[in-house]
């Protein structure tokens, strides 16, 4: 387990999942705004989209930091 989480492949998989999360977040935001516009009722959907994008950003930043350390 320890070897797996320290491997380059694991780091790439994490950043890949982060990228997928960011794409899903962007799709959710786009679809919500396109179909219902800016409404209070859709606030949790906007927050969800933003959180997915933020997760992608955090993973990418971690990946960059890990690469610069090595």
């Amino acid at each position, binding site marked *: *387990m*320890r070897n797996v*989480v320290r491997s380059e492949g694991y780091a790439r998989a994490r950043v890949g*999942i982060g990228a*997928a*999360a960011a794409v*899903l977040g962007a*799709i*959710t935001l786009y*679809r*919500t705004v396109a*179909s*219902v516009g800016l*409404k209070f*009722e*859709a*606030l*949790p*959907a906007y*927050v*969800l989209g933003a*959180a*997915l994008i*933020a*997760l992608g950003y*955090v*993973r990418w930043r*971690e990946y960059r930091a890990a690469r610069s350390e090595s």
Partner: protein
Amino acid sequence: MATSAPTLRRSVTPWGSFSWGYSDVGADIFVGLGLVLGAAAGASNIAFLFAGVVYVCVGLAYTELAAAYPVAGGGQYFVMRGLGDIFGFIAGWAVLLDFTIDITLFAWSCIDYMSKLLPILAFTVHPWTHFWMVFALIVGLATLNFIGVRESSAFNEIVSGLDIASECAILFFGFVFAFRPELLVHTMQHYWPATPFNLMNGVSLAIISFVGLESISQAAQETQRPASVIPRTSISLILTILIFALAYSNLALGMQPSHALPLDAHGHEQPLWAYLGNEDNNGASVQVLASLVPYYGAFAALYVPVLGAILLLISSNSGVFGSSRIAYAMSQANLLPSLFRRVHPKFRTPAVSIAIFCGFAILELIFAALPSLSPGSKDVYARLFRGEDGITFLGDLYAFGAAASYSFVFLALIALRLNDPASPRKFKMPFNVPFTYKGARVEFPLVAVVGFLGIFSILFFVMLTHVIGRIAGPSWIVLGIIGYLAYRRYKKYPMFRSQSHDWRNQQTKILQEAGELELMDEYLTNLKALDEQRAKAATP
């Protein structure tokens, strides 16, 4: 030759640290989703959003504090250091209530999920079988933790990984193929709760879905390079949990099911949220929701009960781990008797604490199961607890304990920012106002104020909407304070005041033992500069 007492060993890796937190918080949605849908109806996602925002503030506070003070004890230690011994005890005592309930509640729910595949385990049909299975789980987890953190940490790491992959798949198929934003808005407009009371009830239940992040800080004393690792793992965990809670609640309100739902008891069509929140499904709402996701649902229906059961099991395991570690830390600080800090010479785990708190968990199990095991006690429960069953009672206390301890943690964070500006903080909550306090430059954390107001309002909602919670929760705290005062009097320690603590030396030692030598040097430099600043400010 004198030998030093055995201490906890640092064997928790970054992924292990994440898994400890995830295993505790990740399972909460399996229990909380159906309950919140039943209470808050079309405002369920707003209830999760409100609780989620508060949870983010709580998470940021714990991240900052656990990275700055990486010791076992988490919230209890921060509060003791920021506000004094008695408040540290109250915060720790409230968390202990949460952790022992965590052991019972999640072991119970684990067997409930397994009963979807093995009906012989169904509580309503075979209460004695269910009881003995939960009992065996608690004893098994106690043994696992007794043997050592390395073994139980690996156990958490594997199942956390599997669960995250599964939940990502469910949410991906749900959002890509079945989520309809216009249906979400329609559901929220048509099924918004009739009174604010329902929404407050929903929020008080939604916080249950976010309890347990402090597991990361509980494990801080066993984490390698904690000041660097904890901020990394905490931020990922905060986002992951927030995403899952918001995603499930939005799907429940705005997803087009892949097949028609059964009619309700009156023969009418029912919306998805009502189907998930009814009495038949609210105990396994995540499983039912997953089974209704297009393309993936049929497959998910086969394994989600197993996965849910496993995740609930590791959440229960986190309760064993957390309760024993916090008792260890409280005992080290003379808030609990020395019995709780006895470490097993071979395994170096707090064996006595593990045994005692698993014993508490078994008592709670007996209390929760008694009405079903002994039908004669049903009337007594109905009279004393106004119809609430044992598990609902435990759920109320779970929310109470978390909200009470988190409130103190925010106050402690503010106090520590003012009184201990020298401790290096590798991570700081955002939005701070710098000013001079007692001759030193400090930063006042605005997010901590927002978080405190949020969690305090949730504590108010819990007390307002849960009849039993507002009696039993404060009773637990009062009983604890009485025991604490008696112990402190017996040992001739100050009862209401704090003992004298050499925080400077202690902090240096903490950073040194954590292997954070750069931070230790930074701390010593900061202390020197702080003393000079204060001396200069004191000079007329």
